[in-house]
């Protein structure tokens, strides 16, 4: 139903208008339900994120969609085709980046891109791929000499050699420093600007927030929530938190009586007031502090994040 309400108006289009359709997908490894009934769709031209901790089933889901793993049950369509039965046709039109180290350490960047291009019926010129990923300077460098960020850009470059309509990026920024991460974000945005659909997995909340048009939060092989980042936060949290350093004499009972406050929490010497009316609450805090002859320090407002959504949904932090 989460999916239905978001997609109703597009449903009238023919089915292959979806970049990805995935309905009630299941995959079991021994006793472990790696994917236990996952359903979602990716619209053409959008960046869709699967957000969840390690072991949530993101990689298994994405590998089934890439046609390199067979599902146990469920309906899967990628660009209108069954990725397992129609593997070669699907693989010709999608771009895949895996959590892979260096592929052929002794080949140069140019040689590797050229080699991959030959695997596909349709390909972009090597220099164009190099330019897209800003790897032109490294064309003659053996891939084993590349930095982590360059390696990651190369693995994205290899996903683009066939000019794909849909690009899968599996944790594209894991292990990268902040600068390299931002440079990859720029590349993802450019892919969307070029009209390609992108399905990425990540366990970085801020990455999902920054890149994804829509996202699904996964844990234990299931999708817990699906929507835009804003929708997910607002669906769970109607309040924002006003926080300041605890002031002696300001009692919990008094705090709870402030306008708009639904809940009071104490954390490391800090007071958190969950409120539906931020200005009124701040006014009351200032007045009360004044009455005690004190001024609140480190006063601020915190908007709940996807991290809080995840914590709320699963009772644990994303990166545990």
């Amino acid at each position, binding site marked *: 139903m989460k999916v239905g309400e978001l997609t109703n108006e597009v449903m009238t289009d023919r089915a292959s208008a979806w970049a990805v359709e995935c309905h009630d997908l299941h995959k079991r490894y021994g006793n472990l339900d790696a994917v236990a009934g996952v359903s979602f769709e990716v619209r053409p031209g959008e960046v869709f994120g699967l957000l969840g901790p390690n072991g949530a089933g993101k990689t298994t889901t994405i590998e089934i969609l*890439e046609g*390199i793993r067979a599902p146990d049950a469920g309906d899967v369509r990628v660009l209108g085709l069954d990725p397992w039965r129609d593997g070669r046709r699907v693989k010709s039109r999608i771009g*895949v980046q*895996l959590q892979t180290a260096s592929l052929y350490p*002794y*080949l140069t960047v140019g*040689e590797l891109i050229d*080699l991959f291009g*030959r*695997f596909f019926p349709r390909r972009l010129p090597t220099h164009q791929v190099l330019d897209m990923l800003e790897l032109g300077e490294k064309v003659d460098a053996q891939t084993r000499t590349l930095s982590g960020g360059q390696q990651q850009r190369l693995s994205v470059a290899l996903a683009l050699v066939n000019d794909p309509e849909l690009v899968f990026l599996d944790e594209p920024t894991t292990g990268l420093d902040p600068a390299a991460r931002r440079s990859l974000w720029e590349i993802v945005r450019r892919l969307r600007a070029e009209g390609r659909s992108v399905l990425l997995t990540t366990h970085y909340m801020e990455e999902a927030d920054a890149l994804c048009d829509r996202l699904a939060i996964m844990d234990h092989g299931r999708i817990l929530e699906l929507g835009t980042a804003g929708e997910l936060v607002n669906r769970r949290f109607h309040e924002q938190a006003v926080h300041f350093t605890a002031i002696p004499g300001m009692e919990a009972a008094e705090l709870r009586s402030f306008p708009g406050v639904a809940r009071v929490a104490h954390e490391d010497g800090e007071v958190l007031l969950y409120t539906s009316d931020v200005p009124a609450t701040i006014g009351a805090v200032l007045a009360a502090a004044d009455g005690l002859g004190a001024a609140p320090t480190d006063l601020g407002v915190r908007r709940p994040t996807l991290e809080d959504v995840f914590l709320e949904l699963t009772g644990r932090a994303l990166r545990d």
Partner: protein
Amino acid sequence: MDALLALTVANLKSFVRDRAALFWTIAFPVIFVVLFGTLFGGGTARFRVGWVDQDHTPASAALEQAFARTGVLSLKPMSEAAALAQSRQGQLDAVIVVPAGYGAAVARAHDEGASTTGPTSSSASPLLPSPSLTLYTDPTRTGTAQAIEQLVTDVTTGVDQALSGRPPILSVQVRPLSGKPIVTGPSYYVPSILAMAIMQLGIFAAVPLVQQREKLILKRLGATPLPRWTLVGSNVLLRLVIAAGQTVIILAIGLVGFHVQVTGSWLLIAGIVALGALMFTALGYVIASFVRTEEAANGVTQVAQVLMMFLSGIFFPIELMPEWMKSIARLLPLTYLADGLRQVMVGSSPFVPLGVGMGILGAWLVACLAISARFFRWE
């Protein structure tokens, strides 16, 4: 096809740029050939000849000295029966028999030379048959046989003329040695070590395979439209190309450095090398089917290659092994590859007939393919 070639070229580039791989497949066997060739080859080429003197006259002694002076023949006096037996075991390259009556014939010719005036009257004493020196050589070792034959003819002609001052009275009758000798020295080590190199090349295919699986490279390639047979095909092509390179290099060292005489057909040698490379590459896939980590793959291939290296008659002939070791050797495919290469390249006596050996290699190949097809996992 384009993808297959591109992948093979990429693999070859990777191979050549990876100094470690290059060392183990090329430099390592070359070091072995040079080491064993030098240690057991006696350096310069000397032919071991059984010297059977049935005459026992000063003339036959003079002939023996004349042969010894060439510096190329090392003569060992013995009986004819002993000489033929030893040459069958590969301890001799040729046998020379000086018949009884040689000294008398020389003396007679000398007398006639003194009494008659011109050297032109050649047909001396037509009533007495001229004694004939018998030379046994191994016709399968064409080069060696020809060289010895030429040498022996030259020496006997020279000695004749010096003794009699007349054209030769002693003819040389060449006879084949019955049974092929077991070759020794560089002729033994060059084909054996070539077989060893091909075995290593093949089974070490397991290591990059497991590595590529562990690092998800096989999975990444599986996400392209590339058919899997292309991956296997390029791997096999790569190993065939490298095997050809190994063959050329090791043979060149044997031919140039150690004067090994290659007597067999080059086409047949190429065929055996190709069959061996295919079979051992398939064995590499079998190993990769059962080990998960790169470390385990390294360990298993090392153990397998060392066992085969020492139990397949690479460094010493199987005939010299104790019975229990022989029965292990009979089970190992490298035994038959090395034996086949020795038979074809240097005419060594067969451990099993060539057809049987190649049949066993073929059976190993089919078995390895079946096991890999059943158990090999791409991830």
